[in-house]
């Protein structure tokens, strides 16, 4: 499979001199859905802002084989769609149409193409026909979906979401999970919602103090109690109560678990049916 994001030795200092990213290495394959977890201040959002060149730290970043250089930014920003944490930051237009059309218009598309992309994107997020609504008056869950549509309309290759489930009520959260599950494109999801990460992703990247401290099978890594506690996280209940979790030194059990546990999404669906 093709590597779509490749980050080598990325270091970024805040203007105050504190290290936000410290020699970070990460690569993401096409079609993968990767969860990025870690405590507040671990550098998740800073990492996200590097994926489309808003921030520019030292190190190498390649997106779809294209180097992160000033001249390539328009191309990269079209390929990497970022959904920011607060919808109010992303939506600033009088109507939903204007917000979803913002990216395509910047791409210089014809009026016809813009219209087509807007309706397609809205349909993908389940908001077909919402064009004339005021973003300001929508529910939080709807706003989040408009945000997703506002980047999908640019036909990105990689969808990056910063805390997509934060502040959502359980129903909107469920709708969001189903929505993200239905997308085939590469997704990088930074989140504190470990249960959602378990449902959506096979791979997790744990970040702390600006660097990757663990990377691999999500069920194995999130089950390591010591590792989780060390980095300000905790073993999700769904792992804990099905006795999947292990300790760092307990290699045997970890392998056992790895071989026998069910794929998570199914398990959740089963629970729901009950």
């Amino acid at each position, binding site marked *: 499979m093709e590597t779509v994001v490749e980050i080598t030795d990325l270091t970024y200092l805040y203007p105050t001199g504190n290290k936000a990213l410290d020699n970070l290495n990460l690569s993401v394959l096409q079609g993968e859905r990767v969860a990025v977890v870690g405590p507040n201040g671990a550098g998740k959002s800073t990492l996200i802002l590097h994926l489309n060149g808003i921030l520019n730290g030292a190190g190498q970043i390649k997106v779809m084989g294209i180097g992160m250089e000033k001249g390539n930014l328009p191309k990269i920003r079209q390929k990497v769609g970022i959904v920011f944490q607060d919808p109010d930051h992303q939506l600033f237009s009088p109507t939903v149409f204007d917000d979803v059309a913002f990216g395509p218009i910047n791409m210089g598309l014809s009026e016809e193409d813009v*219209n087509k992309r807007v309706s397609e994107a809205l349909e993908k997020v389940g908001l077909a026909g919402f064009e004339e609504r005021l973003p300001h008056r929508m529910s939080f869950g709807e706003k989040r979906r408009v945000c997703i549509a506002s980047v999908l309309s640019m036909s990105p290759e990689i969808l990056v979401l910063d805390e997509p489930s934060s502040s959502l009520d359980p129903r909107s959260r469920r709708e969001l999970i189903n929505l993200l599950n239905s997308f085939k494109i590469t997704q990088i999801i930074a989140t504190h919602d470990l249960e959602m990460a378990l449902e959506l992703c096979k791979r997790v990247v744990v970040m702390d103090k600006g660097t990757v401290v663990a990377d691999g099978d999500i069920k194995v890594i999130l089950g390591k109690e010591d590792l989780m506690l060390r980095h300000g996280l905790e073993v999700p209940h769904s792992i804990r109560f099905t006795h999947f979790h292990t300790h760092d030194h307990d290699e045997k059990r970890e392998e056992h678990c790895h071989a026998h546990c069910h794929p998570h999404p199914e398990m959740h669906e089963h629970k729901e049916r009950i």
Partner: protein
Amino acid sequence: MHIPDGFLEPKVWVSLTAVSAAAVAYASKKVSKDLDEKKVPLMGVIAAFVFAAQMVNFPVGGGTSGHLMGGVLIATIMGPFAAILMISTVLIIQALLFQDGGITTLGANIFNMGIVGAGLGYLTFKGLNRVTGNLNFAVFTASWLSVVTAAGTAAAELSISGVIPIAVSLPAMTGVHAIIGIGEGAITIAALGLISGVSVDVFYGVQTVEERKVQRRPILWILLAVSMSVAVFIAPFASEFPDGLEKVAESLGFLERGTSKVTSPLPDYQIPGLSGGISTSMVGVVGVLATFGLAYMIIKIMHRKVKR
């Protein structure tokens, strides 16, 4: 446009401090009387918004960018008195904490941006809206005029203090701001459009829909009437610029001879262009009409939606 300490003569800043202090005192009385207790925290947070909005950069062409002033934007929503208070607050903070503007010049800066920028801007908005019934036209023209006149009064203050001859400063300042003002006008229309789309009665002093759509009078004489007042700022730009450059050259020669003059500069510089003949006013009127034509086009284009 923030004038720092040290560049205005006492006679200028003392009189403007008096004018602004009186205006701010009157505005605070007015605001505390007409509005409920809610307004203090609300106005405080919105004043913080004004501060942030003044940091907004927008492109004006030639690789340069302008800063938003926001006077008309805030006055059309919150009313002119609240706007003057908010802008004064912002100016005080800018002078104290950000070294933008000075202590002795605070009055002058409040006069330029608060009283002229927001107050006069609001009156222009209200008047134009009443006569033309075209909200966007009124907003655009008022915003444009507020930026240009604020720059004009700042230029005049600097000239009276002898910093720079009026023949140079007025055309230079109003010329640049005539362009920046177009951006200010367009941005203010878009911002108010969005805000009024969400909550209906946003325009201060323009409560009802009927009041917004008063009878349209022939637009032409209104344009001409307004243009007369604006000609004051356009005419010198059009006709006096070469003179201004000559004056700078003269002063340069003066400097090279090594004699520095420490006399009052006022008698040396009259305000040129204002009393000019028919040709000057003609130029002014043409300039004004061109500007309004541009305003009209911009409003048209901005309202043509990219859809369906």
